[in-house]
């Protein structure tokens, strides 16, 4: 049997974040030796990247590929551009998270059908926006100064839609759409609608991209431009286009200095528009999209249905907004507070008094011996479970991958057969083979015992003290190879408190937020950006609002590399 490498420090240490990354490579019947931190063959030792090391280095912003607006960003941007009463519809291609975050390129692909969807969405929005043309234009398109009126509207529209000054060519193009439409016998309303349809389908609007411009040669690193900073801030913190204040600062050339950016970041974080954005980040971090592919056995869980499923998805955003903006906003609070924000079905599930309907929500205190923050939310627990039984593997793997940033991959090419479900055998016993079979044990010893700590929560996230046919739940677990918090524990509440105190967890959270912010996985050029975000976050006693500020003060945010626009030779 071939023994594969499991520990690989280079991948994580090279970005100076978590000290360890589990890295499974299994080929056929090979094994993972669970020795985290032990470098495999051929791994170069790397020096730790610290703030001091970074201070000596030139700014390194890393890659910044163009990013399509997410479906949330599209809807918000359309409303901010054309009016709050506009219904953006649901045609625009859905953002679909498979791994990572919804801001990733991979989650926002434009397929063939997607291009048609963008077209249909644009037509619907244009139709609504031009339903009262006078109100939209603020002047009379058919009056004596009709062409001036429309030209002024188009110029303003384009600058706001493209979120930067518009080039003469870009403006000519849009004006020609209107002129040709009128010459072809369309009325002013139809002509403006066609301009809007062009704008809403154009890459300047659909994508966030930063052009070469004339600020220097290809490959040169320069400070971020004012308009670029405005969009970076608004999409990071509000998931929408820059507001008037950002655009005015950009026009005045007063938005590229770190201090100006930080001041704006603080203003924006205090604005209610920031709240859902951090909630969406938390949903992706908790892998809530797993609920899409999950079904529960309603014979076993009669209370499970569409209403509870919808509540799972809404709870996280509401909880995060509450914990960050109404409580103290610290990561430790997110991970430990025995508070939930519930509607009627969730109140029933948690066994507390709550609102009378599914549409009303309120924060409630939970039993602190049973619940602690995000990792004991019903939706997270249900998403990391099967139709009938819990999934200690999924829950344990979540803690490794998402909370500790220790990457674990599912094993390839091996028979994943488990002993059949039997209500007289505990999940723990069923999984015993994982931990004894050498082909599995290396990594499963790192996951399963963590997941066992969550055994007090059934497959829909309810507290339980027995499983199957009245077998007593054993929620004792062990967290191995997790730095200073390694060791045995009993129950998810104890685990959550341990995680909340961990440096490794804070570093991991900063890294996850960095990934969501830049819309991609980190790479070598991001080492210092990640260190900058982490150090500031840790220094703030892990305040989530300060983490958002910190993200705007990294090399990745404050600088950019001028792209090479040459055609492929």
């Amino acid at each position, binding site marked *: 049997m071939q023994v594969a490498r499991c520990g690989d420090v280079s991948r994580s240490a090279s970005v100076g974040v978590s000290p360890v990354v589990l890295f499974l490579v299994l080929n056929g019947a090979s094994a993972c030796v669970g020795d985290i931190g032990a470098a495999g063959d051929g791994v170069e030792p790397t020096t730790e990247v610290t703030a001091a090391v970074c201070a000596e280095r030139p700014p390194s912003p890393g890659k910044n590929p163009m990013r399509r607006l997410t479906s949330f960003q599209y809807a918000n941007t359309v409303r901010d551009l054309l009016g709050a009463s506009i219904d953006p519809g649901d045609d625009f291609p859905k953002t679909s998270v498979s791994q990572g975050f919804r801001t990733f390129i*991979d989650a926002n692909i434009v397929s063939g059908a997607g291009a048609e969807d963008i077209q249909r969405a644009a037509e619907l929005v244009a139709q609504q926006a031009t339903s009262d043309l006078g109100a939209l234009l603020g002047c009379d398109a058919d009056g004596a100064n009709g062409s001036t009126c429309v030209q002024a509207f188009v110029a303003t529209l384009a600058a706001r839609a493209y979120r930067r000054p518009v080039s003469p060519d870009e403006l000519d193009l849009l004006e020609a759409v209107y002129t040709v439409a009128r010459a072809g016998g369309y009325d002013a309303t139809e002509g403006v609608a066609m301009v809007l349809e062009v704008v809403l389908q154009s890459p300047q609007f659909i994508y966030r991209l930063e*052009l070469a411009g004339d600020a220097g040669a290809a490959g040169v690193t320069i400070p971020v431009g004012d308009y670029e900073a405005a969009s970076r801030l608004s999409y990071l913190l509000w998931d929408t286009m820059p507001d008037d204040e950002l655009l005015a600062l950009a026009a005045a050339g007063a938005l590229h200095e770190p201090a100006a950016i930080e001041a704006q970041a603080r203003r924006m974080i205090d604005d209610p528009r920031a709240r859902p954005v951090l909630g969406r980040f938390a949903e992706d971090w908790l892998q809530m999209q797993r609920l899409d592919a999950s079904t529960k056995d309603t014979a076993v869980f009669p209370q499970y249905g569409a209403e509870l499923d919808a509540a799972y998805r809404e709870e996280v955003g509401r909880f995060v907004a509450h914990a960050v903006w109404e409580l103290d906003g610290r990561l430790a609070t997110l991970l430990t507070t025995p508070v939930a924000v519930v509607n009627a079905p969730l109140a029933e599930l948690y066994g507390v008094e709550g609102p009378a309907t599914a549409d009303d929500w309120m924060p409630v205190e939970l039993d602190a011996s049973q619940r602690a923050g995000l990792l004991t939310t019903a939706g997270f627990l249900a998403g990391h479970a099967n139709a009938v039984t819990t999934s200690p593997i999924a829950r344990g793997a979540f803690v490794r991958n998402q909370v500790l940033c220790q990457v674990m991959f599912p094993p390839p090419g091996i028979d994943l*057969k488990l002993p059949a479900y039997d209500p007289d055998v505990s999940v723990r016993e069923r999984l015993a083979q994982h931990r004894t079979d050498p082909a599995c044990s290396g990594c499963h010893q790192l996951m399963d015992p963590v997941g066992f700590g969550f055994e007090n929560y059934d497959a829909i996230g309810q507290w339980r003290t027995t499983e199957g046919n009245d077998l007593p739940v054993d929620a004792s677990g062990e967290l191995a190879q997790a730095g200073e918090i390694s060791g045995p524990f009993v129950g998810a509440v104890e685990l959550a408190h341990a995680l909340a105190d961990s440096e490794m967890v804070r570093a991991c959270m900063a890294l996850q937020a960095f990934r969501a912010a830049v819309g991609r996985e980190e790479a070598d050029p991001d080492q210092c950006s990640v260190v900058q975000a982490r150090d500031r976050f840790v220094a703030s006693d892990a305040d989530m609002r300060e983490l958002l500020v910190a993200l705007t003060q990294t090399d990745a945010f404050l600088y950019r590399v001028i792209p090479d626009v040459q055609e492929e030779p």
Partner: protein
Amino acid sequence: VIKTSRPDRRRFLLGAGGLVLALPFLEAFRGTARAAPTTPKRFILFYHSQGTILRHAVIPGATETSFSLGEILSPLEPWKDKCIFLHGVDNKISGLNLANGHNSSTRTCLTAVPYSTSIDQNGQLIPTEMQPEVEGHASGPSIDQVLAQRLQQSHPYRSVDLSVAQDNGRLLYFGKDDPVTSEPDPQKAFDRFFAQTPASAEELARSKLRKLSVLDAVLDNFALLRKQVGRDDKERLDAHADKIRSIEVSIQNSKACEAPTIDLPTGFDYHLDEAVSAAVQLDLLTMAMTCELAPVGTFVFGNGHDPAFAGITIDGQPLSAGYDGWHAMVHEGRNLDVGNGSTYDAPGLIRGYKWYCEQFVGLLERLAAVPDGDGTLLDTTSVLWMSEFGNGDGHNNLALHAVLAGNPGFDVGRCLNLGSGEPWQVSAHSTNQLFVSILRGFGFDDTTFGWQADGVSAGPLPGLG
């Protein structure tokens, strides 16, 4: 007894089921009768996840001309002469990616190429231990899209892509990193492909012109912008612009097609009512092929992991009763001990796989009900039924099971076991060769398809071109 709302062949023709076909329209098709071509005119892919149970598909011991269908494939008995049953072809690409399990199996199943993240800048495969820890996208197109691009002539669309329950999203690829979106909502599918009937020819012309002039301006904006961005962004802008050009083609080629009517039951939820979804989507797919909306159709069961199988029961119980869902039963419901040394497989598991087969039969029935030339659509269509695994329980990519049906361009009514014997072990033959065969069935002279990994033979499968 299984109950689906799938209209049978008679109802389909008479319009009493979910789909109403106007008879004069069919007459019009009869009017254009011509000799059945020797090469197929179109391609349809039928896909579901989780493989099968090989010993209940084709009874072991089969030869090319003498074979018996097992319980799972028993609904195909009347269609045996229209099929080629294919066993023992391996997906040899899946294992080239670091992450395997479900993800790599799916993304390589119809593309036969590694992830783009598994290939370096020089086009060389990166050893798995050096690959990035991401679930990448396929680095090239799937067989259906290759055919779609080659076969599109005056069709408005390259392909009509429909799914059941949800979009798989990681199975069909138009190109590198460019997954195809398939529509799981029958109402939306109907709206997209059929609900565009302008009142007059003049209005149609005007509406076309308006859409085209808007899209022309959008394309001009792509051209303006691409001069100012780096290479990777250029590539992505170009790919997007290409799709807008496809919309232009679909507008130019759009035609008034007798629209079917769809009649969805009250409270219908396409995520859960898989039987209704499958029936209506198959109706729409058949209609799209009848109307020549595209040369390629794809039909994919999108929730491969835990399909609801709503209303489908065995002995009055849900299929996976006693198991922790469908996926758990796929793993655990095999080789159960009878007690005397022999084993059996869970009846619910066999029933689930058989249900997929019934849907496949539903497709064949629908195609055979529409006249085309001297025969029917089935006589002019190359149909491929595929899944990512052979035996589902092992979740590996060896010894896949596939069915070619209709007119794949080769003699039908055969069973080809290309594995190294029974019970269906590692094969000398690959899915790359299967896709070469399919292309050759259309008269193309390809000798390779996808990634040429070590141990992947060039050329078609023996007995298939």
